[in-house]
């Protein structure tokens, strides 16, 4: 059974990422996802070498193809004013091909204190191993 997109996004924002990721992972046959996370970091799952935000590059290959997140888990139609990203109006930083803006709170579900790498957690930049 697959959870509707909107509910999935809400769950992620609510921090219930494990539930969602488990169902996403089940669909593509990789489970449980903390192991997947480690395998990606160790290079045991091939996500390519192209560091970038394009849909064929590592970012989307990790989150979408490998972890099985749906586009709508991150891309919304709109971002509520309370979660402003303070981006500049001409939106020069986003390609026209993007399905919609991304509420950065979604990332916190997985990137605060693991199992995915520390991005918003308490680890200092100097403590995060550079690739």
């Amino acid at each position, binding site marked *: 059974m697959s959870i509707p997109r909107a509910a999935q996004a809400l769950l992620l924002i609510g921090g219930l990422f494990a539930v969602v990721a488990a169902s996403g992972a089940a669909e593509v046959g990789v489970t449980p996802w903390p192991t997947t996370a480690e395998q990606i970091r160790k290079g045991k799952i091939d996500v390519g070498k192209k*560091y*970038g*935000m394009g849909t064929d*590059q590592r*970012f989307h290959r990790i989150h979408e193809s490998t972890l099985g997140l749906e586009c709508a888990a991150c891309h*919304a*139609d*709109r*971002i*509520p*004013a*309370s979660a*402003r*990203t*303070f*981006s*500049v*109006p*001409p*939106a*020069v*930083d*986003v*390609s026209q091909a993007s399905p*919609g*803006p*991304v509420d*950065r*709170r979604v*990332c*916190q579900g997985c990137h*605060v204190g693991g199992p995915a*790498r*520390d*991005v*918003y*957690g*308490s*680890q*200092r*930049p*100097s403590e*995060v191993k*550079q*690739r």
Partner: protein
Amino acid sequence: MPRYGMVIDLDRCVGCRACMEACKVENNTPQAIFWMYLFRFEEGEFPATRISFLPRPCMHCDNAPCVKVCPTGARYKRDDGLVATNADACIGSRYCVAACPYGVNSFNWKEPKANYYLDWSAPSAAQALKPVTAGAVPPYDNPDLDRKWGKEQRKIAGGGHRQGIVEKCTFCVQRVEKGLKPACVTACPVSALEFGDLDDPASAVSRRLRSDRSFRLREDFGTEPRVHYIGAARAGTGAREIEQPKGATA
């Protein structure tokens, strides 16, 4: 070692955008790229409306997500707290763009032109300039931007404007290293912006921080920004951006 930071007084800000202008002139940023951006918000319904402003430079976070995700180490934190981008090491992965909750990073989709705003060398421009600046040419082509800075000696002042790399506010490292304040701070006509050593109790930033309650943007991300805001004129969550970024709600 100073611990540089900025204090922005929202009660003083009048939304004139001189900070944005000064930044562009100092750093010669490409068209549609703003290292400093001033948001204008509006709330309420006519006639009971209220307007507020939010100048937004890079937050130069102590716990910067952009530094953590950069695959090459091009984005790094200096000892004095400035979060810098080494133009020679940036591969344009845009991971910083994705990770930053403040939207301060801009990617050069196109090759920027040397000078967007006016060809100062054209005779007509020189003539137009004469009555305004007595012939002095604005430093649109600031040679400091291409130099290497800091103990690491890296190209971090933004002179790397070129296609395929990311750029953002540098706190005007080329000025700070000479003992000057960032261009936006110097240009602000109402002294809403202040810059200095947060560790020095006698500095203007420390004094202002002591005198007023302060807050920082999106503290929920644990980024520990070095830019502090003071003043009560803060946009409520119901506020609308007057010029809206793509995808924002009304």
